[in-house]
């Protein structure tokens, strides 16, 4: 079996969560790597949409921004950003949205706005961008994030984007009818929401990771499912495709 690192484990696991008929709103960074890995392995027909307006894009290298020329050149169609947010995202055409965060709580609410007080921030983060409406308009949300006590917190400093709110039926109380964060994929494990209360429960642990590792890297009290699976390891083929993709990407971005 090929050696892999925890980022690769997370990326491959995220990629495997995607289906061939998904229409996926892709963010930059890990989501982009996972979505394109899925496209280059088990989901060749997956539709990747970037918020810059490119629909059905098939980039050969990963974009640095969400609007690199490669995305447009390989897309089926490129629409104005107004149309992207109005007809495609708000119009309910996207099945899966990928989101990451600076801070996350156990109900999948995320913060990408500020650490500290909004008006007097300790750290000013980039802000919500597309996330507040991606979080509520996509059929379901996959959260992808490396675990740490600083990131996985009991209470986030600012609710940039809604997950399950205060849990239970709280999400629906905002008039939101989409499923919400159905899966949280980290470098250590997979968590899924409790069927009623909606807090995250560990349902699968990556090979070589202990329960204590997860507990040590989580700021809320971790709950494990009755039956916890072991996450399947990346295949040699997946790793090869992923590494080739990153190699092509690095060459392209440095070469300019």
């Amino acid at each position, binding site marked *: 079996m090929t050696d892999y690192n925890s980022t690769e484990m997370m990326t491959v696991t995220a990629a495997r969560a995607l289906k061939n008929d998904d229409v996926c709103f892709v963010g*930059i*960074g890990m989501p982009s790597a996972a979505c394109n890995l899925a496209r280059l392995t088990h989901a060749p027909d997956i539709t990747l949409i970037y*918020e*810059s*307006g*490119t629909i059905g894009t098939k980039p050969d290298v990963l*974009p*640095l*921004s*969400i*609007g*690199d*020329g490669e*995305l*447009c*050149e390989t897309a089926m169609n*490129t629409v*104005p*950003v*107004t149309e*992207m*947010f*109005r007809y495609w*995202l*708000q119009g309910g055409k996207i099945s899966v949205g990928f989101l990451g965060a600076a801070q996350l709580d156990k109900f999948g*609410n995320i913060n990408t*706005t500020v650490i500290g007080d*909004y*008006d007097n*921030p300790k*750290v*000013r*983060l*980039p*802000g*919500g*961008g*597309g*996330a*507040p*409406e991606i*979080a*509520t*308009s996509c059929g379901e949300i996959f959260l992808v994030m490396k675990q740490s006590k600083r990131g996985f917190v009991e209470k986030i400093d*600012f*609710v*940039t*984007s*809604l997950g399950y*709110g205060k849990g239970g039926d709280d*999400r629906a109380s*905002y*008039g*939101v009818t989409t499923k919400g964060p159905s899966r949280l994929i980290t470098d250590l494990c997979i968590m899924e929401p409790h069927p009623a209360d909606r807090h995250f429960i560990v349902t699968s642990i990556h090979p070589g990771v202990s329960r204590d590792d997860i507990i040590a890297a989580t700021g809320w009290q971790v709950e494990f499912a009755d039956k916890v699976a072991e996450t399947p390891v990346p295949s040699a083929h997946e790793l090869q495709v992923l590494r080739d993709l990153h190699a092509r990407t690095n060459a*392209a*971005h*440095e*070469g*300019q």
Partner: protein
Amino acid sequence: MVAQFMSLKDAIATCVQDGDTVAMEGFTHLIPHAAGHEIIRQKKRDLTLIRMTPDMIYDQLIGAGCAKKLVFSWGGNPGVGSLHRLRDAIENSWPRALEIEEHSHAAMANAYDAGAAGLPCAVFKGYRGAELPRVNPNIKFIECPFTGERLAAVPAIRPDVAVVHAQKANRKGDILFEGIVGVQKEAVLAARKSIITVEEIVDDFNDVPFNAVMLPNWAVTAVVHVPGGAHPSYAQGYYKRDNAFYKAWDNIAKDRDSFNNWLDQHVFNGGPKDFEAPLKAQHSKAEA
């Protein structure tokens, strides 16, 4: 009121006044960097800057002290990290305090759409369960008069000036955008005045597809020929995004002194002609 062909200097001097609300748009693609430099060179002050992704272009304007307020929805250097000048202004009021009005992308896109459509506000399904409405009084909610559904509303964006970059103008001043077209057309239609910098001026648009993304000359104020004017952003069909420079910006902007040095060297002692150089370098590399 047909578009005038102008130099970049004259276009900025004529159209942009201290205190104006200015929207410089381009979603990763076609960002009007040369025009941004000219605004810095002309030391415009107290601008309210509007842009979905402030990006390097507003990092420069904010660091140079042109802005009193920023309206935005995502303030990072895509794929790289922070906008250090933006953060220094928000966190430390350097070089001056910066008021911010923060939205989501959906809100900004809808607000541009509403501005182009002559509406006072945009109504959309947004901000549900999100906290920005607590800190931004320009986010309100209304009820659908038919279903009672709660919908978000934000004021339309109606800038004094829109500044965008496009691939082509014809000799009449009609404008053609291709590729990732962002919200540029909306920004121009929403603004009182507009400056369009272009890669190329062509005799006519006879070969352009029926449904291309265009602006007629009577919907535009000033057209300026600035080849390479989007660098380090890109112009589809002309040159690629200079991703290496976006990464290099992180170091340049991290420190106030290195930023000021960069500003002196490349902006105050530069001009629109400089934007042709990286373009030529890229071409010669491609040919090599």
